[in-house]
Structure formats: structure tokens, C-alpha cells
């Protein structure tokens, strides 16, 4: 017994020395915890695998949350545009076509969110209000301004989907294959919306450059926030 118990005891002393850096609980800020901060303790507690799974889940959660919020935004932007331009018989079918596709995207992310048990963005009412206002105001400025808004938004969303697809491909997890396929399909449809907007004189809009820049930067800021909140 004497000879046998020494190994666990020594090991326990070392473990005790390492164990002083326990990981803090993460409530609403999963992206704030770097995997490195928990790795020292994990070798003691034997939870290395679950730590990796955690950081993977955090990344997927942030991805799904921001995409879900983005599709909510796209939905309400088109709804806002239709609210103002809905009586224009030339524009209405085009807007309706894009809205119909966005509704499908949102439904897809709704089910993905539930499947991955991801919390939705806390700022959903803000996205809805801002998106609707953006759509309605640009539509009130005329058909060209509405198309310029669509072009700016879909440009950023297309870039954003591309970034996500690149990150997922770099990680090379076979479990992500279906998600990547979904993101690719959505990206292609968003870029199709952008092409429709350009074909419909988006660049003839008043203050085109300023409008486009402001909306693009606003979208980037919203993406940054929605990943976190």
C-alpha cells in the first residue's frame, strides 16, 4: 500500500499547483473566453475534449446567431421597401421574389438555431426596427435608392457569407459539410439580389456613394454586434 499510493499523491500535488486557474463561467459572452485560458486547467480535470467541443460550439453559435440576425434584417428591409413601393407594378414582383427567398433563408436559420441550441440575438427588436426603417426610408427616396440599399446590404452579406465559408473550410471539420453547402446556396442567392439591384439602376441613386458607404459600414457594425450580443 505504501509503495502504491505515492503516484496518486505526487500527481495530486502537481495538479493542485495547476488548479489555481479555474475557468470563469460564461454567461452571455462565449466569444470572450479564449481556449488557451482553459487549457492549463483542462489537463488536470481531464476535460480537454469537452473544451475543444466547447470552443467549436461557441464558434458555430456565433456564426448561426449573426446569420439569423442578418436574415431577420434582410426580411424587414424588403418588407419596408414593399410597404412604400408596393403599388409600383414594375418593382413589386422583383421585391417580392427577393423577400420570398429571404423568408426561406430565415426559416432555415430558425431550424438551425433550434437544432444547435443557439440563443438568438438579444437585439432582435433593434434589427427589426432598424431594418424596416432603412428599407422604408430608402424606398421613399425612390426606386433607385432602394436598389442602392439592396446592393450595399447584399454586398456586405455576400462578403460575410464568404468569410464564414472560408473559416469553416479552413477548419476542415466534416461535420460542417452540410452547413457549408447551405451557406453557399444562400450566398449565391444574396449575390443574385445584388445583381438584380445593379441591373435596376442602383447606381443612378441620389448620393449613391455616400448612401452605399453608410449602409455598408452600418451592416458591418451590426454584424460585429450580432456575433456578440
Amino acid at each position, binding site marked *: *500500500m*505504501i*509503495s*502504491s*499510493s*505515492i*503516484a*496518486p*499523491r*505526487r*500527481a*495530486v*500535488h*502537481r*495538479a*493542485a*499547483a*495547476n*488548479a*489555481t486557474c*479555474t475557468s*470563469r*463561467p*460564461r*454567461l452571455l459572452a462565449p466569444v470572450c473566453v479564449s481556449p488557451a485560458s482553459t487549457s492549463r486547467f483542462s*489537463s*488536470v*480535470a*481531464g*476535460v*480537454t*475534449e469537452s473544451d475543444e467541443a466547447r470552443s467549436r460550439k461557441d464558434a458555430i453559435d456565433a456564426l448561426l446567431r449573426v446569420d*439569423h440576425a442578418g436574415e431577420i434584417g434582410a426580411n424587414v428591409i424588403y418588407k419596408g421597401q*414593399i*410597404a*412604400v413601393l*408596393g*403599388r409600383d407594378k414594375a418593382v413589386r414582383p422583383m421585391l417580392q421574389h427577393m423577400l420570398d427567398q429571404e423568408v426561406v433563408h430565415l426559416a432555415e*436559420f*430558425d*431550424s438551425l*438555431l*433550434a437544432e444547435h*441550441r443557439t*440563443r*438568438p440575438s*438579444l437585439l*432582435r*427588436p433593434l434589427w427589426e426596427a432598424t431594418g424596416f426603417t432603412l428599407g422604408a426610408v430608402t424606398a421613399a427616396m425612390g426606386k433607385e435608392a432602394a436598389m442602392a440599399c439592396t446592393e450595399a446590404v447584399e454586398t456586405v452579406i455576400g462578403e460575410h457569407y464568404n468569410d464564414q465559408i472560408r473559416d469553416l473550410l479552413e477548419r476542415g471539420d466534416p461535420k460542417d459539410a452540410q452547413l457549408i453547402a447551405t451557406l453557399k446556396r444562400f450566398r449565391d442567392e444574396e449575390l443574385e439580389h445584388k445583381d438584380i439591384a445593379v441591373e435596376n439602376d442602383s447606381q443612378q441613386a441620389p448620393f449613391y456613394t455616400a448612401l452605399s458607404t453608410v449602409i455598408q459600414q452600418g451592416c458591418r457594425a451590426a454584424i460585429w454586434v450580432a456575433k456578440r450580443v
Partner: protein
Amino acid sequence: MLTKTNPAVACSRSIRQFTGLRPQSPRVRGSLSAPSARSSVLRCLSSTRPSPSAAAADPSTPATTVHSILDHALSHHVPRLGFTRSALVSSLSDLDLSSSALGMFPRTNYAGREGSPELVEEFWKACKQDLAGEVEADKKGFASNPKVQTVNGRVPSYSVRQWPSTGWDAMSLGERVRAVTLVRLGMTTKVGQHWADAIATMALPHNLPYAVQHLAETADEIWWLAGCRSTDLSWYLRRASLSLALSSSEIHLTQDPSLVAPSETLSSVPFSTTFDFLCGRLDELEWLKDLGEEAGKRIEFGVRSARGVVEAQTGWGRWV
């Protein structure tokens, strides 16, 4: 006293132990007869006798980790000693470890307090992992015979008795949440004697963030098992309100008559006043939800009427 071992052997052992090169699955560490699965942790909690077999830890396998210490304490010492440092110390001596291994539980030693937050958290984790299985067992028991008062020889949980005769599939979301929450509360009643101390430990300022985290995870698990798949703000409202109901019921548990005079209440379900308290809180939440929906409908009606008046007066609009 321990100087006769070959140091090389001991060293290689400890390296293997703490570099993640484990010979066995991460869940079953070493040869401890201590629980290998979570469900057994809770099952052991219902009996108050410590098992003597656990003391015979086979020293040839090198895995004694934080989790196995906590699991062993939870299943063998917590029923008697509560969520305390003493339970951890007893667990260490059962597993043939130095008492300095308490250093692996820094928050237990904080300011020399007796309560062990790590043990309470391990209990919460075990409950969260077991919840799905318990709910499934209730579903099966109910499906096999909805009327009986015993299922497979044991008294069915309080939850099942509250089920409507239609069974799980026809239950509304509210009824399902009630059923799952009752199962979860039933797990806490198993350690009811020590729950007041556990609450006192976890309510300390430096433990509170962990307690909130676990409460949020528990509420999420309950809504998930009940089948909630919402993706709007109701996601947050539901979890927050359920957390309130569950935590207040767990506080109520510390004053339950069954703790003081178990014999008097044996004719009914033990802890039935706590279960009734939880049902009352959940009823209030339903009422609040109805109130909110009603208010939303009124506002929508008001907005529609106002828009109708504006359109009629100005001829402007006919928006979609």
C-alpha cells in the same frame, strides 16, 4: 513514510495521468468502484449508506481526477455530510489520496469556509445530464399504464401523476415544461436535507456567477426537453421566468414540512408542498403570458384602427 517507491515509475505515472494520455475513456477514470455514469450518482444519493467497496481503490491504475473525487463524494458522502469540505475530505481518504488534494478545489478552501461550491456544481451537472433520461423513463412508464400509481415497482415521480390522461404527445408546451421542471425539482429533493446549506454556499458573492450560469443552463435544458424551439425574444423571457420559478421553489424546499417530519407526510407524496408551490408559480407565469398576449392584441387593434382612420381621412396609404 512513502519513500520506497521507484521514483521513475511514479513520475511516468503522474505524467501519463496529467497529459491527457489516459488509457481509459475520460468518463471512467481508474478502477474506482465509484460511479461510472452520471445516473448512478443520483441513484446513490437516495440511499444514505456509504458503500465500503469504494475504499478499495486499485492503485495500479493512475487515474484519480477532480471529477472522480467529486463523483465519489457526491454518491457516498454528500447524503450524510452535505455539500461540505468534510465530504470531500472523506472522499479523498476513501480514494487513498493526500488531504492536500483539497488544493484542487480552490473555491472550497476560500476563507476557510465549510461549504464546497464545487460539489454543488457537480450535483447540478449530474442533474442536468440525468434529466433527459428521467423524462424518457416517465414517458415510457406513463405510456405502459397511465392509471397505475406504481411503475416498475416504484412510485412514479410526482411529475407523472400531474400528467393529463392524453400523455406526452398531446400535452401543451406549458404542461410539458411543468412535467420536466417537476422531475428536475424532484432531483433536488433527494438532497433536501442539505439544500439550505448548498444555497448559502452558492449565494456567496464569489460563487454567485457560477450559480447563475448553472441555473441558466438548467432552464435551457428544461425548455429544450419540453420542445421549445423559439428564436425570438421569448427565448430569453421563457428561460428567465422559469429560472425564477425553479430557484424560488428550491428555496421553498428548505422549509418543506417533509424535511422536519417525514413520517407525517408519507401518506402523500414527500415534498408535495414544494411541488405544489412550483405549480403555483408556473400557473402565475401562464397567466402573465396570457396577459402579455392580450395586451399585444389590444395594441395591434389600436394601431390598425388608427391607420384606418388616417387612410379614410387623407386618402393616403393603402400600404401592405
